[in-house]
């Protein structure tokens, strides 16, 4: 059981995913919500690479993990631009207090 196999990587990824979801749900600050999203994307990447190795699928899983990293970079840039705009408009970035589109 202590011998590391596919299951160990999947369990690490599942716990990381749950922690990310917990962060997304409980944090008020929009930047903290983004950090939770990064945790979730990382856990998905661990799954891709683990299955790529243990499923004997060649390197396709690694290529898709690379695509996920690139998408995460684009997503973080756009989301932070939106957060900066929200801060300019409302003077805070608490996601539970911002409930209309313009002011």
């Amino acid at each position, binding site marked *: 059981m202590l011998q590391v196999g596919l299951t160990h990587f999947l369990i690490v990824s599942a716990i990381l995913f749950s*922690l990310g979801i917990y962060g997304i*749900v*409980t944090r008020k600050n*929009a930047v903290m919500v983004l950090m939770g999203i*990064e*945790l979730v994307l990382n856990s998905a990447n661990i799954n891709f690479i683990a299955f790529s190795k243990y499923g004997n699928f060649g*390197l396709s899983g690694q290529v898709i993990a690379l*695509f996920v990293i690139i998408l995460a*970079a684009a997503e973080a840039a756009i989301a932070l631009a939106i957060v900066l705009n929200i801060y300019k408009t409302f003077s805070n970035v608490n996601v539970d207090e911002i409930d209309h589109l313009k002011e």
Partner: protein
Amino acid sequence: MNFYDIIFYIFAAITLLSALFVVTTRNIVHSAFYLLFTFFGVAGIYVLLGADFIAISQILIYVGGILILLLFGVMLTNKITNVEIRTGTVHMLPAAIATGIFMGAVVVVMVWTEWKSEPSATPLTTTTNIGHLLLTDYVLIFELLGILLLVALIGAASIARRDKE
């Protein structure tokens, strides 16, 4: 329990403990620094899975790019003079219970399922093969991601620009 297993457990502990601190610390700047250790731990797990190029990309893009971007976000959306930058939290207990149940369910499924497990012999360097795959099988996605990055760059610049009023 050989050397590989010990290193795996060390990296898994680093990743999960720092991720736990990321989502439980109230201070946003502390969270960002714990996120650094999470990213390094995940990069170590990638190396253990034989994905050296992805691990380096992870460190370059996440630690060098996204984490710095997040820190800029923290600094630009709080008063800098305020040393204790804190975040409020909502629904702590229901969220903890729900994600705990979810985590338990997923872990049980992961453990009970009979996964096909035949580890492939990892090539010494994956970079060459990833490059070949990017320009043959995945060339359409590769080009589309190039366009997406351009669009994201222009979009982020135009969204964050201060309007002249």
